[in-house]
């Protein structure tokens, strides 16, 4: 496996897993974000 290929798979994992982790963390924050919001 070449260095380019290893770099590609590392990037794939960072993007795929990273985006899911960030989105899950955002979902954890969501209730407090919505509760802090004043209703009109």
């Amino acid at each position: 496996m070449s260095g380019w290929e290893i770099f590609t798979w590392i990037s794939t994992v960072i993007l795929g897993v990273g985006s899911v982790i960030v989105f899950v963390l955002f979902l954890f924050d969501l209730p407090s974000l919505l509760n802090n919001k004043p209703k009109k």
Partner: protein
Amino acid sequence: MASISNLDYFIIIFYMMGMVAIGFWFSKRHGDFEDFFLAGRSLTTPLLITTLISTYYGLDVLFGDSQLAFTDGVVAWFGYARPTYAFFLIAAFLLAHRLRKENFLSLPDILDRYYGKETRYIGATASFIYSLPSLSLYAFGMLGEVIMGWPPIIGMAVIGGVGLIYTLTGGFWAVALTDSVQFLVMCLIIALAVPFALNLVGGFDQMIEILPEYYFETMGDLSIWLIIIYASTGLTILVEPTFYQRIFAAKSYKNVRNALIAGIFIWGSYDWIVTILAMAAKVGVLQGTITVDVDSNAALLTIMVAALPAGALGLFLAGVIATEMSTLDSYCLVAGGNISYDIYKPAFKPNASDIELIKTTRIGIGISWILGFLMAIAFEQMLGLWVLLASILISSVLVPILLGLYYPSLRKKLAGILSSSFGLLSTLILNIYIMVQGTFDPVEETYILHFGNWEILQEYVMYFTVPFSFFGFLLGILIEKDNR
């Protein structure tokens, strides 16, 4: 028109309806103008990561990166994308901290506080012009044609109309939350596409074997001047209005810093994968597994249509739409704020209530969308239009904002006025002159003015106008000094 199954169409329609639903959900849930425009300054790190990445990465990146990778290889990442990360680091450690120190609400707010109302109006005008969503709408026209077989004007109206509706109704809350969904869709589907694309062309080893050697040279055969030009496009980050809006909307400076540092890894991975997918498309063309006469800017779309199964293709196309919709909504909102908060309130109604400001912002959003729509129809060369819009913003506000932020003793009223107006006027005059007097080069995809043995590309305009803006700044300082 691509070959797309009913399941793919269902996913695309479901996605667009979901975005509109989020907008309506937030339509009655915002309080004052700050809540509508900056989500009450409550954005946390994860939300900042999602909204920064999805807003700053539009189809220009998706198809611009892939176009260069298709024709030149890994230089698309090393020479074109990588320099941008240095500007993100500068923004994380030097710029964001300064911006968070004072309670700004918009980019022209900074100009007003340092130089007065006149510079605010020039900066607001430049920011408004830059934020017109003409490129996004043009891209939707293209996508509508590829996905649905619609005439471009229908794609612009329908797909762009969805973005307009939820931005109008939900404000920044809707923009930020839809950005989060759009972030997940656009990142995940690009990552999932890698095994499918590599499988289609017979694995990574086939890419190394089939592609010419220069495809794997980090700087390819690009000249140093072209690399400097590519690198300098990252300057826009330092005065990017949507970027500033997110810094102001963050809970704290630490949230912004952490989001930018984490974001660099995701940005880098995204760019690299787009580069590899486009190179895989080139391999597919050379092997004859995908259409031989594929256009370089359609390389990514072509290999995805060929490689992805039904359902996954629908998700990919929804991701492509998401990539641009998250850009359109943010720019429309900034343009609306420029009209209401940056011009209408200080110039015509200083005591305007929050309800009036929100209403005027919505009108501004509508005006910016319509103007962007008209420009998307009128202009044939979108790249030329983008260069014009970006150079208007950079030339008008880069010098007064950066000097004002870092050198408080230079915050002189006349310096701000002359710097921003010199930058704005010289950019308009030079760009129009090159577009009228020059010739369009289809290879370079830009207007070129021949001046004896010299060739001046439209992209070079900023090398004249930014120093001219700096000259105006110094002139203002000197005149004010003499007057004393």
